[in-house]
């Protein structure tokens, strides 16, 4: 048990971070079919917003709390800009959205590199996150607990929003049958924009969490985008419960593999694991049943 507990807890925290990064993708990729490779750069934007908030509000205790909504709005606006400027012309060409957003990602990285120092910026964690809590004899850093709580809150809010609000109903209606939704009087274009805003905003929130755990620099987005997409693919596109399970499983797997071998070998093994998993569930954990050809 002593050897199993630390990777289990660390893996859960890593899974929570992956979940935060992937939640936005379940909206933009899963619900709208847009493959947004700039999602990682929205995470980066969130992290830099956390840093800038800290420059204005010097007390790190408060700034991190302020940074969360600011990062949500900031990254969301970036996403909105992307949707209105580029993506809206490309809904009929899903694979091409991938290429366009690769270009956007390159440009955003370069902008960040020119504004902020290349070696990255420090985001101080608040004092109330400095401690550890004792879990069965293992000192679990509070920062990891914070990530898990944040991920759980975002998850609950998103799920409730999709399920219980009239707006969530409209999103689901648009996803299931765009033409029918439109004829029923739902403004599908506006729905698209708000979905994209929320999906990108969640990346900003993930960025704040990421800034407390890893470095904040112009390249940080590239390290989250692939695992986040793997989570969405393994979880089943557009399925929030699948994303949750896949994120947690991938986080746990990564930290156990890293424990047994090395951090880089863990990435290779995790990739193999996902490919093997897709042999059994090519559509991911949960699928939407349709009569369409897959």
């Amino acid at each position, binding site marked *: 048990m002593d050897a199993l507990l630390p990777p289990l807890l660390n893996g859960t925290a890593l899974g929570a971070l992956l979940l935060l990064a992937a939640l936005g993708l379940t909206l933009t990729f899963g619900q709208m079919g847009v493959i947004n490779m700039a999602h990682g750069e929205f995470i980066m934007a969130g992290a830099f917003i956390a840093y800038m908030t800290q420059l204005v509000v010097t007390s790190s205790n408060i700034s991190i709390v302020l940074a969360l909504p600011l990062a949500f709005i900031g990254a969301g606006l970036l996403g909105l800009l992307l949707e209105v400027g580029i993506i809206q012309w490309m809904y009929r060409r899903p694979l091409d959205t991938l290429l366009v957003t690769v270009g956007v990602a390159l440009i955003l990285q370069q902008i960040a590199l020119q504004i902020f120092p290349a070696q990255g910026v420090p985001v101080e964690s608040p004092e109330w996150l400095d401690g550890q809590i004792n879990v069965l004899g293992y000192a679990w850093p509070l920062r990891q607990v914070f990530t898990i709580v944040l991920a759980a809150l975002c998850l609950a809010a998103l799920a409730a929003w999709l399920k219980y609000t009239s707006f969530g109903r409209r999103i689901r209606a648009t996803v299931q049958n765009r033409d029918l939704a439109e004829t029923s009087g739902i403004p599908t274009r506006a729905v698209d924009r708000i979905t994209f805003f929320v999906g990108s905003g969640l990346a900003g929130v993930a960025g704040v969490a990421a800034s407390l755990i890893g470095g904040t620099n112009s390249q940080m987005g590239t390290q989250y985008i692939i695992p986040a997409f*793997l989570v969405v693919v393994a979880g089943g596109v557009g399925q929030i419960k699948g994303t949750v399970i896949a994120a947690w499983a991938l986080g746990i797997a990564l930290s156990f593999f890293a424990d047994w071998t090395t951090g880089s070998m863990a*990435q290779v093994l995790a990739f193999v694991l996902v490919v093997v998993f897709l042999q059994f569930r090519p559509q991911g954990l949960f699928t939407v049943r349709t009569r369409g050809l897959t």
Partner: protein
Amino acid sequence: MTKLKPWLPLIGIGVFAVLLLVVAPAVLSMHWINNLGKYCCWAIAAVGIGLAWGRGGMLVLGQGVFFGLGAYAMAMHLTLESAGPDSLPVFMILYDPSASLPAFWEPFRSDVFTLVAIVLLPVIVAGVLGYALFKRRIKGAYFAILSQALAVALAVLISSTIRETGGDTGLSDFKYFFGFVLDDDANKVMVFMIAAALLIVCLLVVWQLGRSRFGELLIATRDAEERVRFLGYDPANIKLVAYVVAALMASVAGAMFVPIVGIITPAEIGASASILMIAGVALGGRASLFGPALGAMAIGWGQSSLGSSWPDGWVYILGLVFILVTLFLPMGLSSLFGRVKSLVWRSRDTPAAPPATTAPVLDEVEK
């Protein structure tokens, strides 16, 4: 004109061959020969991407992994050859004077094994991965993401194993290329000629595949996979062949890249390098014969000249290439010729042929 038309691509390849193999060595300075050799390597990989992506519809975002397999196989051989028989590569001794050669290096002492490995390694990796994915009908974005994940995984693995592979510093300082001294100008021209000839061979292969029954099936699979399946073919096998051929070309490109450039690092095979390969193909025109090769050469030129003299601006240009080409010219610059031609000839010709498929029709219906 009509009799000549099917042979036009072949004539084009011939002209290209004369330019690369006869004119270039006679006209260009050593510096530019070396650069052109580097662009040829990227072009070889791009020709394969054109086959897999342009004609097969598989967005191969991780060709760097096969480029890397070929490159590292070649680099390991050249490192051992430079070190001499029974001795260790210099970097290994630097890290640990008492180190012994890792077991997987040993066979690369042999010329024959290295050449076989450059061909077989990518075929095995692409074959296994492609079989696993295509048979389970994993396609589109899923396939793209997974292929990029593989490239990232290999790059991370290599950069973390400093003692075995040289890590981030990579492998460099090659003195011999299968017995030839690499520092000699005549031998450099020879290496360039091999790369250029391989590019011509790859173009010929793709041209021949394109006009064969396989080529028709490949395009049919791209445009309407279900219909191909209902006609009794297995789309998975068709895609697998195209993917393996593309992987093989990327590996050959990587293998030639090493003696020409003189260094291979994980940065040349990771996500951003793979994306750079895609950029050239998208710019040139993914479904055309020459588009990928010429586009890759253009991007290669930009990367090595602008990329070093004006690195900040180059990234913006690269980003804009992706955005503008995808938005306005999904079939790349080569489709411009078709558009201009149809504008000019519209009055006297029969209606222009429908543009090369932009979006698979059936896929839209499914969604």
